[in-house]
């Protein structure tokens, strides 16, 4: 079985406990305005032109984003980093895109990682078929679960999808006893409104198994990626989210999990 992978990065320090290697899967059902991985959205291999500098001259060469990989190929690649996992209590995180957008591959990969006694985390938007979640559940040590917008219409407006399946999946995971790391993106005027943060707070307060909440302030680093991909960027003039404001918002959540932090 093959999956479409667009990157595998070692020393991911913000995607779960310890030193981790993150496997980024390509393809996502959502279209969040603030998405910082625009190259991860399309479930197809994409061709872009990339510039390489040689002193003052510059060469543009086509480059593929996305590569078909088998479970074994991915496992072999991440196995190389095992000493770092073992020393730090880290492991492998599947991210995206939306890993549950390729449910069979993701399940097979997680299963194989657990076979090899590697700690696993799944970074998900939660927008997935219930069956897909059910399939990965036994092989996933931690769910990194995004909570963006509590209001259904606003969720539809800014991500292109409603949040009903997301909230259902979240409650289901909580009931099943999953370890949850909740991740809340802070985007000025979109996700950081008092109503939204209050509502998210309310949702989290009803959950069991929330071990950690990460507040993720928006940053404009992705803008260049949109340009390279020739995709429109709708947050063109937005500045990096104010750090003090993020710290203030964090206060809302401190009682809801043993560990709450800004920046992941």
């Amino acid at each position, binding site marked *: 079985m093959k999956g479409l992978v667009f990157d595998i*990065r*070692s*020393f*991911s*320090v*913000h*995607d779960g406990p*310890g*030193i981790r*290697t*993150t496997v980024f899967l390509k393809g996502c059902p959502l279209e969040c305005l603030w998405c910082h991985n625009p190259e991860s959205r399309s479930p197809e291999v994409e061709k872009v032109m990339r510039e*390489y500098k*040689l*002193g003052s*001259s510059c*060469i543009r*060469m086509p480059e593929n984003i996305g590569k078909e990989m088998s479970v074994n190929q991915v496992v072999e690649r991440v196995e*190389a*980093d095992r*000493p*770092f996992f*073992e*020393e*730090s*209590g*880290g492991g492998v995180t599947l991210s995206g895109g939306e890993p549950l957008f390729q449910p069979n591959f993701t399940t097979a990969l997680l299963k194989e990682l657990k076979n090899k006694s590697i700690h696993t985390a799944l970074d998900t938007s939660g927008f997935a078929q219930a069956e897909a979640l059910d399939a990965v559940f036994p092989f996933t040590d931690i769910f990194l679960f995004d909570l963006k917008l509590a209001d259904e219409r606003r969720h539809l407006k800014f991500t292109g999808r409603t949040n009903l399946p997301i909230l259902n999946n979240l409650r289901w995971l909580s009931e099943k006893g999953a370890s949850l790391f909740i991740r809340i993106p802070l985007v000025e005027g979109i996700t950081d409104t008092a109503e939204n943060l209050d509502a998210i707070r309310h949702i989290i307060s009803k959950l069991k198994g929330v071990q950690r909440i990460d507040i993720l302030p928006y940053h404009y680093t992705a803008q260049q990626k949109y340009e390279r991909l020739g995709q429109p960027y709708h947050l063109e003039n937005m500045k990096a989210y104010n750090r003090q404001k993020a710290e203030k918002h964090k206060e809302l959540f401190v009682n809801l999990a043993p560990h709450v*932090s800004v920046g992941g």
Partner: protein
Amino acid sequence: MKLRIEQLREQSIKAINRLSAERALLITEFYQSGKAQNEPIAVQRALSFEHLMLNKAIYIGEGELIVGERGPAPKATPTYPEISLHSLNDLDMLNNRPKVSFRVDAETRMAYRDVIIPFWQGNTQRDRIFAALNDKWKSAYSAGVFTEFQEQRAPGHTVAGNKLFRKGMLDLIGEINQSASLPENQTDTNKIAQLHAMKIAAMAMVSYAIRYADKLESMATLESDTERLNELIDMVRICRRVPAHAPQTFHEALQHYWFLHVGVITELNPWDSFNPGRLDQHLLPFYRKGIADGSLTEVKARELLQAFWIKFNNHPSPPKMGVTALESNTYTDFALINLGGLRFDGSNAVNELSFLILDVIEEMRLLQPSSMVQISNKNPDSFVKRALLITKTGFGQPSFFNSDVIVQQLLSQGKSIEDAHNGGASGCVETGAFGTEAYTLSGYFNLNKVLEISLNNGLDPRTGLLTGIETGDPANFGCFDDLYTAYEKQLQYFIDLKIDGNNTIEKMFARQMPAPFLSLLIDDCIANATDYNAGGARYNSSYIQGVGLGSITDNLSAIKKWVFDERRISMTKLMEALRNNFRDNDALRYDLIYKSPKWGNNDESADRHAVRVFNSFYQAVNGRPTARGGHFRINMLPTTSHVYFGSVIGAMPDGRLATEPLSEGISPVQGADTHGPVAVLLSAAKIDHIKTGGTLLNQKFDPSFFEGEESLEKLVSLIRTYFRLGGHHIQFNVVNAETLRNAQKHPEKYRDLIVRVAGYSDYFNDLGESLQEEIIRRTAHGMA
């Protein structure tokens, strides 16, 4: 920091480096007088040392707590004309060059012109060395295949052991007398002369301290401030006690060491000054005793350590001459304080003083002494974290060393387990058994120049001269192994040349340039009645330092891929492109740079070349006998020679343009590591570090990697994993490119900006422009 320390620190940073003729004049006066000319050479050297210690200026700075200077004032740096003689041109260059200048005043220049040069011209160690070396050696040396450490400086590179803190000069004289009465020494006139020389040197050191005591006493009579008066009286007492007797208090121990340090670097100009080594071990008994009996407080200990730190910073490296100035263009004289690691019995050595000294390092933020932490499996994470918090502040200290691998390196070289536990690293990253080993660094070896010469069938393309041996026209090589075989033959040829040269030079130092004072301090020179430079130490190692592992790996992997595997280009065409420095050939260069396997990405198709070259280098060098009765060994470190070595090489198959710097240490080529620090460490761990006496790995990190407890824990894990995989050393350069660019534009605003260069730190402003550019280019690993 107390006001006094702040002022001394400020003075030390601001003091202008000057070249002082004091030592050169005294040594000339001594040899001119002819009064020792009938004595054995060792005794002559000891008497010349005595002449220096009895006549050099006494300097006591305002508010100083530790006294003694190599020159007549802080940063006034002596010269060593008996070793190598600066010409008037050299002096003018030192005075005028924009980087690392040494002020030479008219009086000094005149002393050189009228007294020093006429006496020493043609009669220095350097003259004798070049006269003794053959043309093949000289041809390889001028081509930049290797450098020679001992052409301008004496062999040194050794570190104080515990004995130094437990014995005074009078105790050592007792040992000398005992050694002289041994039957095997009694009848040997040479040995008796060596011991006699050591005794003269020991007494000369005592006299030097007494001169300080006298001067302090006369200052005390004029002192009106009560607090300072008490200090002066205390210092008078201390200088009358040490180094004649073993120190008894914390203050005495520091002053004792410092006198001996000044002695070592006044006697000769050993490459890498001298080094107190395992300071948190040596000082601990004095610290605990003082705290327990109430004679010392933590605050006082801190102030004394700070004063001690400033003394090191007052001593830049002796100014060099000619091409050596290019090879190693720095002020730093490579004292490296070791903290942590293992005790003599193999138990955890981290103690309260380790943490106190880390505080001092952080507060002082000085170029010298440099500092490192030894990390063993037995050391607590809290110690590693504390050290990382200093690294985070971005002046390159402390660096991180693997104690457990250091112990294994020393054991594999045949040292006893206790001597191995007492060991550490000095200079940049060099492993040694402290207090018992003479481990001389003999020169850098240009692994990539050897490839260039192999690709040109023995010719150096820069000069057209036959510099190596004829190993065949590469156009006729049928497979990659043909090329590698040629490379290995050239490597063996040049190593043989280097080793022959080293042995010639070692014999000359043994015969003509004994170091009786240094011999007192390193076991077992006294018991063996043999000089440090003649093999008197318990262990004797001579190192050749391999340079450019990343570059050679990428060069070989590019040739294999494009010429032999994929046959994209013929060897003839590749050679033509190299000769033309890739002019009008960007497409080829693009493939070489961006589409070839590179060292530092955990890519086996690149890394296996590194392992192969490393093992060839090891085989060619390791275990071969030295003239002093020791063995040749390898280590992998460049200081700044990767810049010089790059400047003598044309364009290379990894896409590097002619004369650009090579990779440093075992680090990847600048910018070639595109897969983050984990991949770099996995690559670096593929060579067997236990086969070396040190490897150097530089990792540049954004300061944000150090933010917060969790990040620190992950960095601790990163270091621990590399060490678990057998890595020897890692250092972090925590700066951002923007800061460095600003520093280039406005050097005046960044006078205190220190960066880790390669195993040591230096002022960014003092680095040559190409080295500045390189540091900016080094991949800054961003957040994942």
